[in-house]
Structure formats: C-alpha cells, structure tokens
C-alpha cells in the first residue's frame, strides 16, 4: 500500500534560493556496493543516488548496515565490490567529507577551541571561534571537554565538522545518546545550518520521527539493500502534529516492524518504544 504525499508547498518556496547554494553540496552515487564484516554480508549490491544538497535519512533495524554504509562513504570500511563516487568525477580537488559519530569523540586532552581546530592551522582560528559562537559555545572555548554536558559535546563535534565547511556531512546517530529536549534543540540546529549552508547531508538514525523531521528523503535498509525510499514532501520546519507526518511515520514504522518474525515479536515492547525502533 504505497502512501503518496502531494503537499509540496514547503519545497516550492525554497526553490528560488537553493539553486546557487547547491554549489556547496556534492552528489553521492553508490553503485553495487557489497560489504562483509567478519564474514557476515552487511550490504549487498546496494545502490543509491543522492543529489547535491540533499538531506537523506537512513533508517533500519540494528545491524542492518546503516552505520557501515556511512563508514564506507568516509573510507573507514573497505567495500568488497562496488563504487562510491562523491562529487563530480572531473576532480576539482577532493570534496570535504566530515563524519559525526554517536559519541562526540572529542580529544579529552585538548581544550574546546583546539578540538574544533583539529587538523587545521592557526589561520582558521577566527573561523573556528565564529563557528563555536554559532553553536552558542563561545564562552566554553577554553574549557576541557570533560566538564561539558553531552549536548554541548555534540555541539562541539558539530562545530569541528563545520569548520571544514564540508560539502558532505555524514551523521552517524549523532543525537542517539542525548535527552529528548536536547535532541529536539540539536535537530533544529542541524536543520538550520543545513538550510543556510546547503551541504549534502546523510543522517543515520533509529528514530523514524527524527528522520522525517529532518530529511528530504528517508531510505530504509533491509536485507542489505534499499527496502523503502520515501521522499518527504512536508514544509519545513516540520511538526509531529501534522497528519501527513504521522501517516508517513506509521508507514515507515510498519515496514520496519514487519521484518520481525512472529516468534521474536514482542507487542508490549513495540507499543512502548514509541518512535524509536
């Protein structure tokens, strides 16, 4: 039962301004990608095409290979077969790809500002300060990461990625360990920054609502391939109260839960887990 959404008003209003800003984002083409980890095939003949400046969310059950996909895009996993093309093949320099992990992975022995400037020389100092200020962390520049809260650390990690002005930002469940309120704030922040900079973004999440809130497209991975590929035609900023939102969420969640065999299905768990799958 395919669900279609026709409300395109949100996208239309942006159309005029996005074209020149699209310059920053790069397209990502993944062809026939197969990856095996420890003898187990995680992704098999996986194909996906991501447009320049697009925000794509990837959902799927634990262990479906969604994180592996991100890690292979950034080069942390080597594919057995297949190709991953980032940007144009014309080769105008290597496109800047940054990844943000579930844990902030700040270096505990560097203060916040040097952490943000990791891998960069002093000429980026002003820019690093500016990005920190944008994350509302200007006054924490000289603190140690150990005394920051989880949400603040993730904002630092986001700042560290943004200083490089990436053309492709990969987000590997970056909000998974945050409390509900901080998570909503971070979602708003990520959306705001993506809208102003228009890099290409790929978000891996287990939270379907989060995927629908942020993404232009939600891709569901199952059995090593694409199970669902839904375009989200909802105006931004999106609210969960919207009926289209709820219908789409139910549709994707239904598909996720369907994969579970009756023997291991636990209706109580499914009912109480809310949006998280």
């Amino acid at each position: 039962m395919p669900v279609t959404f026709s409300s395109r008003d949100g996208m239309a209003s942006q159309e005029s301004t996005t074209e020149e800003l699209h310059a920053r984002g790069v397209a990502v083409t993944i062809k026939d990608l197969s990856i095996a980890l420890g003898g187990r095939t995680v992704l098999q003949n996986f194909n996906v095409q991501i447009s320049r400046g697009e925000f794509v969310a990837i959902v799927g059950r634990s262990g479906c290979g969604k994180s592996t996909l991100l890690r292979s895009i950034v080069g942390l996993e080597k594919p057995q077969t297949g190709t991953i093309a980032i940007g144009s093949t014309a080769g105008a320099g290597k496109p800047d790809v940054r990844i943000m992990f579930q844990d902030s992975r700040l270096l505990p022995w560097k203060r916040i500002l040097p952490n943000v400037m990791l891998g960069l020389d002093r000429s980026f100092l002003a820019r690093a300060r500016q990005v920190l200020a944008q994350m509302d962390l200007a006054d924490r520049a000289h603190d140690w990461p150990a005394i920051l809260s989880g949400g603040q650390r993730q904002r630092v990690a986001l700042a560290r990625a943004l200083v490089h002005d990436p053309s492709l930002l990969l987000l590997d469940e970056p909000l998974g360990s945050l409390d509900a309120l901080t998570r909503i704030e971070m979602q708003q922040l990520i959306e705001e920054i993506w809208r102003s900079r228009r890099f290409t973004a790929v978000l891996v999440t287990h939270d379907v609502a989060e995927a629908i809130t942020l993404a232009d497209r939600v891709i569901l991975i199952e059995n090593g391939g694409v199970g669902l590929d839904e375009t989200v035609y909802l105006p931004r900023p999106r609210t969960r109260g919207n009926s289209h939102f709820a219908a789409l969420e139910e549709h994707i969640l239904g598909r996720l839960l369907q994969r579970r065999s009756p023997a291991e299905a636990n209706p109580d768990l499914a009912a109480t887990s809310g949006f998280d799958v």
Partner: protein
Amino acid sequence: MTASPAISSRFQLRAFALRALPWMPPILLLLFWQWASSTGVLPGRFLPSPRAVLTSFIELSASGELWTHVRVSTVRAFSGFALGGGLGLILGLLTGSFRWAETLLDTTLQMIRNIPPLALIPLVILWFGIDESAKLFLVSLGVFFPVYINTYHGIQSVDRGLVEMGKSYGLSGWRLYREIILPGALPSILVGVRFALGFMWVILIVAETISARSGIGYMTMNAREFMQTDVMVVGILLYALLGKFADLLAKGLERYWLRWHPAYQPAR
C-alpha cells in the same frame, strides 16, 4: 550574628585537623621512640634516640659529608632513570605502535622481565667491578620494565574511536601520533614512571650497600662497621625522604600533563 564567625572558625579547625591528621602517626611514633630511648627501654646499641639521630644529621651535614653522598646517590639514581626509562619509553612506543617490532621484541623482553635485576648483582660485580657503571646498569635495568610495559600497554589501549576520528579528519603519520596516540597513552606511561621512580631507589640502595665507595648506601654500610647506629638511621631516613621526593615529582608531572583528565579537575 555571633554564630557565623564561630561556624567559620570551626570549619577552619576542621580543615586544619584534616591536614594535620596524616602527620599524627609519624609524630606519635617519634614521641614514643624518644620516650623509649630516654627511659632505656630501647638500648642505643639497637636504635639511637631521635635526638642522637638529629645531632648526627646536623654534624654530617655541617661537615658536608652528607651532601656529597646525597649528591652522588641522586645523580646515580636519575642518570639510571634517564637511561633505563628513556630506553623503556622508546622500545615501548616501538612495540606498541608497530606490529613487526612487537613480534620481534616483545617475547624476548617479557622473558628478561622475569629476571629480578638484583639477581644479576654477582654478574654485574664481575663485569663492572664496583664502578659507577655497575650502579647505572642495575638502576637502568630496574626502571626499564615498568616504563616499557606501561608505555606498550598505554599505546595499545588508546581509544580506537579517537584514532578513527583523527584519521577521518585527515591526520596521519606523526601528526596522528602526536595529537592522539601519545596523549592517549600518557596516563599509562605516567603510571610506569611513578612506579619506576619508586623502584629506582630500591635498586640503588641495594646496589650501593653491596658495592660502592660513596653514596648514602655506602655511608650506611660504613657506619655499620663502626657501630654508628645514628648514622645508619640518618641514611635510612634519607632514603625515605628521597623516595617521597621522587613520588611528589611523579605526582607533579601527572598533575601537569593530565590536567585535562577528569580525575585531576578541580571540583566544580
């Protein structure tokens, strides 16, 4: 109104008591020792009174003899530490970082580690006589292993996630090493250094007691020949002080280098 200064002074008293508390057992012991000596319960042949030890300390330091021995011992200890610790650090970094070095060296080093350095004393005397190099060799060997093992372990246990993150930010080679691997291994390396600094004195005491013509160990052994128990006690107490000093040094290094570590952060 009058309560607040009373409370604050009571707090000060508490703070003072907390600071003074660790010193109570040694002070009480000292008082008991003095009492036992002056009443004759403890004969001077076995243990001189604290006052006699103090007098002997003043005499020895006034003549300059004491300081010569202390200087000789300290130079020995720290040059041995620099040599053995430096080698341990370099080899630990090597075996921790490169698989080929680990395969090549680790088995051999683990075998040698099981030989107590002091068991080598007969051989060392044969090889080096009672020369400076004998002491240097023994101390170096003693401090080598704590530093080596903890460095190796430290490098091995650096958070893989941070290394991965560094690589994804374009760090590689020496920069990855300097910014992520070395600082990540530092807490463990410093544990090794602290242990080595303690062990350094133990080895040196034994080495100097057995074969030396200067140093605190020599002074103590020489005093035994003449039954100068007070000088012997001065020597023993000096070792305690120098050991404490080395420990403070190690703590200071930790406090400086690990100031980012949650364990060393001032409470907020």
